[in-house]
């Protein structure tokens, strides 16, 4: 069930009244039922996978907690009787058992994800290596990839790690835990929430609150606008450009990068707006996933503002543990003695950075494109770290430059294009093609396509370009307003007539200009002859 389908709207229209009509203590059960209904629409097979993840992580966490509690009780009861050595030995035994449960849950769930998502990628690579030596070739397998598996697996694993670390006690009640794993608005595309953020709200009681509900509805509407009016429209042009690399090279690659940046932003943040909006109408606050990322002044900042919950997940559960792990600390010692303290101490951080970005890349998709994309991100971050003193000195030379609007604009534009260029890796078929296409920007550059009407051959008519352009301007305007605080709160202070006009305008913009229904595909539109 897509967010943009009539079926989904109907699903929400049934859920909302029910949610506020049932006794408050049953609200979470209704949400759980709704989430499983939503998931069942993606296919019954998928339900098994989410159920396995739910049950295994729930049980492993309970076992880890039980061990921890038993240890505390044991040590407390024998506080005097045991020697320090005996205590240590006991703790070590418990730790080992705990680690066993932890690793079991981790390996099983990452294993499921890995098998479903990466088997074919592995086979393709094995075949390539095998072909080098004239070996046999394996058949690709046809595996089902459950909807949102990367998101719910990561969210649930985060919970297991937190429980293992003793950050909070586990959820004893399986159905309640199941709701945390399967909460339907964020099942498809995140955000990846933390248990201690989300669960209290999911499981709490929610009286009808006019303000949060209307804020939620506004946010949903805005999300639909971004997704259906801007993103789905631009997608046509982006697909046309990347689908025919031999036709669309040079400046088209640049245009493609630009349009894809807008399309992806509108689509992804629009989807998150819908997610957060729905959760808000249900009285559940969900963490923001984007803070105007294209206004970032450098790549590191960009990654703190784009897909935030994913970034912090990788930081907390991969980057930190890897950086402070024993092997890394010993590498640190060695590199210090080899390279001196200044450089030596940075080596492990950089190694951890590259590992983290490798993982981020492969999480995004099973292909070399994403791996190279991830690593390049890491490399750019490292280079900018290393250049920091240079920047520093540059600004010492020109102390007033840094504060000017022009300089900040330069930084923002530079970061935007850098990220757009890296992102072209998830457009083109493979890595070499991507690099050669980006190369054509320089070798076959020509401005003429901008003016000779080629843009109208990308599947969008003049009207579509105008609507998409105005939509993007509106998104820009909203982002600029956002710097002064919540746009919806600003709107709340506006006169009623203005508020209704905005709601009215946005609703009909979505209904008329939205890309949905049989008639949408312009090339197949038989009525355009009338």
């Amino acid at each position, binding site marked *: 069930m897509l967010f943009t389908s009539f079926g989904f709207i109907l699903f929400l229209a049934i859920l909302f009244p029910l949610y506020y009509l049932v006794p408050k203590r049953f609200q979470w059960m209704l949400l759980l039922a709704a989430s499983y209904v939503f998931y069942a629409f993606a296919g019954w097979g998928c339900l098994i996978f989410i159920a396995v993840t739910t049950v295994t992580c729930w049980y492993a966490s309970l076992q880890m907690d039980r061990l921890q509690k038993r240890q505390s009780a044991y040590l407390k009861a024998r506080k005097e009787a045991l020697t320090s050595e005996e205590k240590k030995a006991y703790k070590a035994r418990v730790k080992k058992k705990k680690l066993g449960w932890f690793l079991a849950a981790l390996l099983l769930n990452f294993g499921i994800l890995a098998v479903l998502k990466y088997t074919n990628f592995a086979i393709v690579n094995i075949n390539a290596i095998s072909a080098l030596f004239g070996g046999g070739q394996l058949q690709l397998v046809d595996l089902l990839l459950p909807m949102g598996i990367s998101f719910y697996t990561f969210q649930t694993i985060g919970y297991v790690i937190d429980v293992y670390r003793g950050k909070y006690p586990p959820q004893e009640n399986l159905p309640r835990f199941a709701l945390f794993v399967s909460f339907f608005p964020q099942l498809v595309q995140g955000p990846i929430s933390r248990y201690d953020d989300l669960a209290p709200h999911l499981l709490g009681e929610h009286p009808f609150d006019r303000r949060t509900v209307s804020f939620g509805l506004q946010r949903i509407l805005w999300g639909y606008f971004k997704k259906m009016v801007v993103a789905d429209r631009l997608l046509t042009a982006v697909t046309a450009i990347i689908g025919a690399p031999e036709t669309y090279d040079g400046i088209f690659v640049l245009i493609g990068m630009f349009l894809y940046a807008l399309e992806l932003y509108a689509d992804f943040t629009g989807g998150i707006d819908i997610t957060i909006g729905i959760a808000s109408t249900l009285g559940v606050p969900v963490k923001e996933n984007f803070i105007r990322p294209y206004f970032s002044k450098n790549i590191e900042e960009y990654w703190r503002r784009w897909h935030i919950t994913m970034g912090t997940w990788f930081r907390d559960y991969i980057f930190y543990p890897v950086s402070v792990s024993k092997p890394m600390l010993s590498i640190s010692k060695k590199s210090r003695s080899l390279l001196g303290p200044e450089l030596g101490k940075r080596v492990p951080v950089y190694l951890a950075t590259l590992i983290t970005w490798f993982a981020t890349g492969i999480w995004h998709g099973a292909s070399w494109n994403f791996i190279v994309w991830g690593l390049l991100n890491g490399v750019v971050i490292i280079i900018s770290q290393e250049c920091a003193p240079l920047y520093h000195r540059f600004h010492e030379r020109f102390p007033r430059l840094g504060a000017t609007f022009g300089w900040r604009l330069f930084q923002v534009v530079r970061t935007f294009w850098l990220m757009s260029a890296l992102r072209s890796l998830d457009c083109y078929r*493979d890595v070499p093609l991507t690099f050669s296409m980006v190369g054509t920007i320089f070798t076959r550059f020509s401005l003429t396509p901008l003016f000779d009407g080629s843009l109208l051959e990308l599947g969008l008519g003049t009207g579509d370009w105008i609507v998409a352009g105005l939509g993007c301007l509106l998104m820009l305007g909203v982002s600029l307003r956002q710097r002064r605080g919540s746009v919806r709160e600003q709107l709340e202070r506006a006169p009623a007539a203005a508020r209704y006009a905005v709601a009215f305008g946005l609703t009909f913009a979505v209904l008329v200009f939205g890309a949905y229904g049989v008639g949408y595909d312009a090339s197949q539109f038989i009525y355009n002859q009338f």
Partner: protein
Amino acid sequence: MKHDVKKLSALLLALMLCFALLAGCGGNGGNNQTDNNSNTNGQNSGETGDENQETSLFIFTSNGVEIKMNAEADPIVEALGEPISAFDAPSCAFQGTDWIYTYDGFQINTYPLNDVNYVSSVVLTSDAVSTPEGLEIGGTKEDMIAAYGEDYTEEYDQCTYTRGDSQLSILFEDGAITSIEYLAVLPQQ
């Protein structure tokens, strides 16, 4: 000065690290290029299907002119020369028109899409012509299997082979072929 040297060496090290890693990928990337193709194609199996079978589509030829299904019709008609007759059947209420060109021994049917006519079928109408594989009207099922193999579906007395976007339909009456038709599998409309 010394400081700068360290900075520089740090930068170099970082770069080397990247290149080492990238080279790692690149090394794989080299032999990977083909795989990635097969990977992408594996996902869009329709596409591969077409590409791999490009050579083995059902294509009728007349006087050296290839008549491929879903190909643009006008150049083909031009190459074949003046037809015996051309009949246009406007579709009900629509401005697009199906054309039927009759030649000696066969008929070409076209369908319109965005103001361009494409070949929708070729019907062999007499035993004066035969398919490039040598099948003709009046032949037998054995002839058909000898020419096109066993991989066909049969419905009422009609056997149909499918390759890519082309189909070959052979109709029998009392054991003899009475009709041979090339059909385009139409693109999604």
